[in-house]
């Protein structure tokens, strides 16, 4: 079945999101929007810009879609809208049935420094909507997957960034999401654990009804894991392709577009040396 016939797990149609360019207009429009419901969400007021501009995408079962783009291109805004953290100004977000979306944005988010790793499993797990019984049932999995051993009973504040990544990722995985969003969450941590996570992600999407949105600017990682690539720039989705190599080259060239051809080639070679 090719993609035209496949049913997407997630489908975004013409999604828009606007932000203010400065704090003052952010406050002024905030007060206005508070007093009266804005009638025209799609009208761009003075000192506003499209953080997401007509985003159309589909995530299919079995896919790991790598989302790349320069800093500020709208990747995290897009993921937050898909997660339902805040609403879009326009467009449709369609999901195949009641799909569970779990997103990992920051490793420390919601974690309590003075509480142990184990206590944080209950805190973060419940924040994802899990009951005590569900967390209890997943505790062995979290212990084994995170490989934290007796460190799980030490204060989270004493954890290294790698240990935090292990715990945060294991908890998110234990929620058994249908759509798993990983936004730069695997940027830290040791190589052994990262390799384990990547293997796990590849196995994860083999299960029916599962898909991953993998946000990263690490070209090497995206090349190793993504089955499709989406390139964002200034709030627009500028490319979606199954050819990962081509997509990443397009992304890097786009980042360097202010340079002349010779300089681009020079910089591309450096990127190839280090990252590909």
């Amino acid at each position, binding site marked *: 079945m090719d993609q035209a016939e496949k*049913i997407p797990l997630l489908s975004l149609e*013409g999604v*828009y999101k606007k*932000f*203010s360019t400065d*704090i003052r207009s*952010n*406050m002024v*429009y*905030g*007060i206005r*929007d*508070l007093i009266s419901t804005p009638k*025209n*969400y*799609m*009208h*761009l007021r003075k000192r506003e810009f499209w953080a997401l501009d007509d985003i159309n995408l589909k995530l299919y079962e079995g896919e790991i879609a790598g989302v790349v783009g320069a800093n500020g291109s709208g990747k995290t805004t897009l993921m*937050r809208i898909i*997660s*339902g*953290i*805040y*609403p*879009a*100004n*326009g*467009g*449709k*977000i*369609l*999901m*195949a*049935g*009641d799909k569970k*979306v779990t*997103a990992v*944005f*920051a490793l420390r*988010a*919601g974690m*309590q420094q*003075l*509480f142990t790793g184990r206590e944080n499993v*209950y*805190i973060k797990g*419940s*924040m*994802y*909507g*899990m*009951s*005590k019984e569900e*967390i209890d049932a997943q505790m062995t999995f979290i212990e084994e997957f995170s490989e934290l051993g007796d460190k799980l009973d030490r204060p989270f504040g004493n954890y290294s960034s790698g240990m935090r990544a292990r715990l945060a990722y294991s908890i998110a995985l234990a929620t058994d999401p249908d759509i798993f969003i990983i936004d730069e969450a695997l940027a830290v941590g040791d190589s052994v654990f990262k390799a384990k996570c990547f293997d796990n992600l590849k196995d994860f999407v083999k299960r029916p009804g599962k898909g991953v949105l993998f946000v990263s600017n690490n070209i090497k990682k995206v090349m190793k894991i993504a089955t499709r690539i989406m390139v964002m720039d200034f709030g627009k989705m500028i490319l979606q392709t199954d050819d990962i190599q081509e997509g990443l080259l397009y992304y890097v060239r786009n980042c360097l577009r202010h340079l002349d051809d010779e300089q681009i080639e020079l910089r591309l070679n450096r990127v190839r040396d280090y990252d590909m």
Partner: protein
Amino acid sequence: MYFVETEKVSFLKMQKDNTGIDQVSISLKVERPPGLLGSWRKIIHNISRYRFFLRQLVRINMLVGFKKSFIGLLWLFILPVIAVFVWILLQGAGIVDPGKTDIPYPAYVLLSTSIWGFFIEIYRTVSQVLSGNGKIMIMTKFPHEVLVAEKIIVHLIRFAIPLAVNLVALLLFGIKFSWLSLLFPFTLIPLLLLGVSIGLIVALLRVVAVDISSLIDEFMRFLMYLTPIVYAPRVEIGWLSGIVEYNPLTYLIGFSRDILTTGSFYEPQKYLIWTGISILFFIVVVRFFFRVESRMLERLINN
């Protein structure tokens, strides 16, 4: 640019028929903003669904301040005991004795400030629900009703402990409780609802109108002096007596105080009117808050 309304839609159900061919039925469920009843049903459903998270939040809030302390939660008892002890000392020294109240003045002020604290603390804590939790709210999707529920539960626990100490102190001051005193906790409900409602409005303003929220904070501090807390309701000071007359807190606090200390009803008619207004205000404000808070949340990020 055309106007496009944001819709969240669930669709597509796949079934296999007996021929083994995938049959795709498409059902569209467009989620529209619910009405008043629907909003409240959703709020209660969300809190019930995330009740384990609510328990975790309450636990964190109660314990986190004492994690590094050796005596831990004992502080919750020690602080009100010290406060009461100071009051008894001051009264013994004759420093505080302005004259006629139905009960000894230190007991009057002790209880009045305690009830005032009940109101102002819930206002303060709820008014910080967005600005104080912005980080986790933008990182993980969960119903924010749980955060407000947590603030209320922690507030009730934190109020109950010093109240118990204060009740002992009131006995020492010679106050005799009646059976009607048992109604005291229930008479505080309108005060709680009013505090939560004002707090929710200020929580929104704290994101987009810092000047107004700061002004309201200052006004709330000043409001204590416009409410019969350190002086008796029968105050005869020109303009102040007028304000006291129209101040809802005069009745909401006075009714609770008198029912506990003298077993009498202070201005029952006005108490009931302000109770009704507080309940209605609460119902409307909570719904309004949860309809607009996500729009305010994204502005918190930009700040």
